[in-house]
């Protein structure tokens, strides 16, 4: 197997072996501490442009399911969160060349290679994670063992981060039939499980790319769902503007997830800031500030709404029990709210799935 290395911007080198595609890439290096669910994680569009470190040492144990069929996404009965591997590169301690599962069609390495995504194993991912924790997320290069640092910077493929949402949103409007209630999903790089979560509860989804004019779709929908997505929410000011000018005036219920929380916060007049190394895991504890109930949630975000910046008519809804950061906001006067974590889970715990029930109930009750 080919020798490979992960080079960090500060010059630190982690050597290992390649087990994915033979490409040299650059990206922000982030870590996720989830112990299961690599298929969902790697296809999560929020990772677009990032080199992902998985801290659980054994990956690929249960293989990868058969590829998604090319038909339109009328049904989403698979474990993928999007049509392709979204991460720029993958870093693990060990991948299993001998997976075992009834749903297994290919190894993790084969999958990554077929999607052109490079991957490295035999890296001390714990030491790397400690470094990221202490120094914050850094830029890294996943390159051949022999590539010099200068060449790494010059030649590695990287993603234009201001454009990541455009790269991950759907090409055009997709309609999913699920029931009488119609939900407009503003897709900034949505995970397919958000669609699954709504459709499974008996509502229909109109999935619209964020850059489209939302007005025509607002008319026919009963509620608006703001999706997750990659990158900095402040690169999405056009969408923030659409929220202010079109969605807010419609008065329809809004529920936001992840980037949806940040966009709603910005539209409300608040601010977002970047976390030192983000929340990427399946064990983030959050507390509902009203009921004091706690939930274990799945998270993947590097930016967060600044509680202090929220205007009077908005208030924090959830808080992170570990570091006190914002995990959700809501409007005091309108049926608008959002959460920073992922109630659709996938991967991760399903504790917060009831939020979809609550949202649809709200949409049903405000329907005219």
């Amino acid at each position: 197997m080919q020798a490979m290395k992960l080079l960090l911007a500060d010059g630190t080198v982690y050597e290992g072996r390649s087990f994915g595609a033979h490409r040299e890439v650059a990206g922000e290096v982030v870590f996720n501490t989830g112990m299961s669910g690599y298929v969902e994680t790697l296809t999560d569009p929020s990772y677009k442009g990032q080199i992902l470190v998985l801290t659980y040492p054994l990956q690929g144990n249960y293989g990868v399911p058969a590829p998604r069929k090319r038909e339109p996404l009328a049904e989403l009965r698979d474990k993928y969160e999007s049509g392709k591997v979204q991460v720029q590169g993958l870093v693990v301690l060990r991948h299993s060349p001998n997976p075992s599962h009834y749903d297994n069609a290919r190894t993790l390495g084969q999958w990554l290679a077929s999607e052109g995504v490079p991957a490295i194993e035999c890296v001390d991912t714990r030491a790397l994670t400690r470094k990221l924790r202490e120094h914050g997320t850094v830029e890294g290069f996943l390159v051949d063992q022999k590539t010099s640092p200068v060449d790494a910077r010059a030649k590695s493929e990287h993603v234009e981060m201001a454009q990541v949402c455009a790269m991950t949103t759907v090409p055009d409007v997709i309609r999913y039939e699920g029931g009488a209630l119609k939900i407009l999903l503003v897709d900034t790089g949505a995970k397919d499980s958000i669609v699954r979560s709504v459709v499974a509860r008996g509502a229909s989804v109109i999935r619209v790319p964020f850059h489209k004019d939302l007005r025509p779709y607002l008319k026919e929908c009963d509620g608006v769902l703001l999706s997750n997505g990659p990158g900095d929410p402040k690169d999405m000011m056009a969408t923030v503007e659409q929220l202010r000018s079109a969605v807010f005036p419609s008065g329809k219920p809004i529920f936001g997830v992840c980037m949806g929380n940040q966009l709603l916060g910005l539209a409300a007049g608040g601010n977002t800031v970047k976390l030192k190394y983000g929340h990427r895991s399946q064990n983030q504890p959050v507390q509902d500030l009203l009921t004091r109930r706690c939930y274990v949630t799945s998270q993947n975000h590097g930016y967060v709404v600044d509680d202090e910046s929220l205007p009077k008519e908005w208030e924090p809804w959830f808080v992170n029990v570990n570091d006190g950061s914002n995990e959700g906001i809501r409007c005091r006067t309108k049926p608008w709210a959002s959460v920073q974590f992922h109630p659709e889970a996938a991967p991760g715990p399903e504790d917060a799935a009831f939020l979809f029930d609550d949202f649809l109930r709200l949409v049903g009750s405000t329907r005219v």
Partner: protein
Amino acid sequence: MFGQYLPKKPRRVLILGSGALKIGEAGEFDYSGSQAIKALKEEGLYTVLINPNIATIQTSDQLADKVYFHPVDPYFVEKIIVREDIDAITVSFGGQTALNCGVALDAAGVFEKYGVRVLGTPIEAVRDTEDRRRFVQRLNEIGVKSARAEACHSEDEVRAAVGRIGLPVILRAAYALGGKGSRICETQADVEDALPKLFASGLPQVLVEESLRGWKEIEYEVVRDARDNCITVCNMENVDPLGIHTGESIVVAPSQTLNNEEYQLLRTIAIKTIRHLGIVGECNIQYALDPNSLDYRVIEVNARLSRSSALASKATGYPLAYVAAKLALGYTLPDLPNAITRRTSAFFEPALDYVVCKVPRWDLEKFVGVEHKIGSEMKSVGEVMAIGKTFAEALQKALRMIDIGVDGIDPHKFKFDDVRKELKEPSQRRMFAVARALHEGMTVDEAHALSRIDEFFLSEIADTVRLGREIEEKKGKELDADLLLRAKRQGFSDKGIARRAGTSDDIVRDLRRRHGIRPHVAQIDTLAAEYPAETNYLYLTYHAQADDVSPSWRKKVLVLGSGAYRIGSSVEFDWCCVNAILAARELGFETIVLNYNPETVSTDYDVSDSLVFDEITFENVMELWERERPYGVIVSMGGQVANNIAIRLHRAGVKILGTSPESIDAAEDREKFSALLDKLEIDQPKWTSTGKLEDAEAIAESLGGYPVLVRPSYVLSGAAMTVAHEREHLRNYLTRAADVSPEHPVVITKFEQNSKEVEIDAVADEGEIVLWSISEHVENAGVHSGDATLVLPPQKLYIETIRRIKKIARDVAAALKITGPFNMQFLAKHNEVKVIECNLRASRSFPFVSKVTGNNFIREATRRMLGVKGPVQNRALDLDYVAVKAAQFSFSRLAGADPTLGVEMASTGEVGCFGNDLNEALLKALVATGFKFPKKGVLLSLGPAAEKLRFLDDAKMLRAMGLALYATPGTYDVLRENGIDCEIAYKKSDNKSPAAVDLMNEDKIDLVINIPRSYDRDGRPDGYYIRRRAVDRNIPLITNMQLARAVVEAIEKYSIDDLEMDDWQSYLARRSQMLV
């Protein structure tokens, strides 16, 4: 601050312990009870503990405010509730014993009567989980699936049930013990074939259960607070498929073969179920998961701390028992901090960045007649936990840790007549059979088809076998750095690599160092490095490229733990380790513990300054020695595991604290020790060793004839030691069971009959004894000291005998320049004293003598080893009470095993109880190990004629108590001839009615005294059936004449109501009232 979700703060809380260690209920409950007491005491509550297990940490003076060494039994608990004015109780920290006791007390209305609140999970919820019918109904209410089963009363009903449930099914005879008579039916023809036999045997009921054979077995540990916050701390996957008890299975954490969908499906059901049942605190939920779909069944819920929760605690660093106790007091999870990071909350689910592998340890070789296949009943006596970055690294470590003489996955270690059969019908050696099969070229798929072990695990084992072969191919050549690193990362030990490469482990170690291949220290931090951790809970791995923590510059000691619990070495050594740690910390030393047993308190990360959860081997200690540079290493607290590597460490330059390893060697080496005794003019039983089989018989004669004690150094099968009573027996044993050769000599010792056995436990300082205590055995010599009933202070020893024992101990301590703990065992007969054993380390009885005398022997020993001098007041004999240590046996768990006592230890645990005299202490101790006062009849079967005559007076006493006597024919005749009224009970071979076993079945007998003849063990005659039936029907059984007579005397003097209810502290306080 106090938990806000509890209506009223309790004042005096009673904690129920789990009693003596037994199969299925072992050291894990010392850990959970100790944590619970800590958590309660932090709240300023007055804590009272009932636990007769005197070797536990939880019964130490620094924990509960009051300790009762009484049986955990509704009768005694009620008395203590009244006596201590208890207003709250916890029943979930003492295993099934405490839970059952709590349920019984609740049913009897005791809690209501005295206004005692049950903290944590309500008893109603416990009942829902314990009663199968209610459990299924509760699960049905929320649409959660449980295994389908129907009870049928006729053949037609069975057919109909099979139709509803669907093939394959298990047909099981209801009310049969231990899964006997069950049959798996794959086809309708199988069912038809089984039916006539099932009902023909007169069974009233047949259970039809769906067969889930080959399904995955998965567990989740769930925590819920009274505010309904709920988390799953850990999930675990059994490497062995369903059908093998989880206590018998190799278990990994977290699950390795579950994808997100399966993981979350089971997690969500776990939370839903636990909320529905209303559990507050900690519980465990077990699942069967179809390997080919999302179909699942809930197998059971344990509404209490369990063996699995202890494992999960150690595997994740999440202190489950501590948190459960806080939640029982009304705290919510987010109120509590994460104990490891101290900056995040206890409301979270640990993320692991390593793999944990648990492997059970069996001791089946110690038993005659026991079934070696593993299955739905638990037979293992201990377990180990290994931590690694990969499954192979962890598994190989764990296989070495169980200490059965293997160096990891070794295809050649054991011989299998039929590997395929071994895979299909697994025994404790199945992993080695897997290795063997894969080594011989069997494919992973075929191995899976036979064993039902998931292909993921099999592939990892196959890789390991291949790498082992790659090393073998390098035999004679120097290993290159790449292969060496791969081998270390795959979990091979230096020794294992050396053996395969035909070299020595010293050479492998040198080679490693030359190539810079060293293990690194990794931290267990519950959050996979997302947040910094404040505690030093560590393990070693070759997959890391840097250490997580650097060694401190403080003066420190490394304490070696006891390793896996096994017969002969269990919780008592953990007590010693923990007390050594505490003593060293008290003196300002930084303490490091090396141990790998998840059932212990010493592996709680807050006991020491740092905990290295890894193998106790020469290889590892050297790595730690060079990394940490401690002041010294303590090897004398962990029993034989630690002791065994002392001399090698010493020779490699490691500073061993206390007695010199050269002295340890002089005491361990039979020849050297014997020569020393001769030099000191100390008597010992006559012995000789030989490498020639032909000489054995002549030697036996020269020692003065039979019986002789035979100790081969290499055993093929069965127990290592035996007593040969005649020439034929000796010959048979040596040819069948052992391999005698010049490399494997056999030691033959004169077996002294009718001798008393006496022990001294002592602490010496540079050869001078500073603390000592002498205990006598109730049983005569011939019963292993671990199975014997100990009395302290001795009640029936001559003053002269005691004087001689003290002199011998003094001479030996001086000659070996002992500093630290030691134990000697003696035979005493008419004031003649012979030394039979000397251990220059802490012994099994140290916690007992420490707690009975009130002198902490281990604390003193540790201080002496660390150079602290000063006078100590010894109170070895001047005690105003008597304490008895009695053994706990687990024969009922070991189907087929012959419940007799011999020179090999068979007990799995012990208790220690106090009384005003021997009778009272003995009765309490026996009741605590399962004895019940006889009310109906006693079955006597007294073996040799001399024994029968010796018991005549006792038989009369039993009659005088109004008990019916039943006797087997020989005994019957003797009793009748001596005018003692009794009824006949025929043996099996008599083939007459009334048969002894039938009388037992008819509940006419509630005590069996069966004294086996000398060589019953091999012949398995009538006595075996009587003993076995007694065990299977839970009738108290006594097989030793001295003990039988002591018991008769005791029950003649005391009824259960006469037994005093004093607590430990009150007994100890009596000392001050004595003449000084």
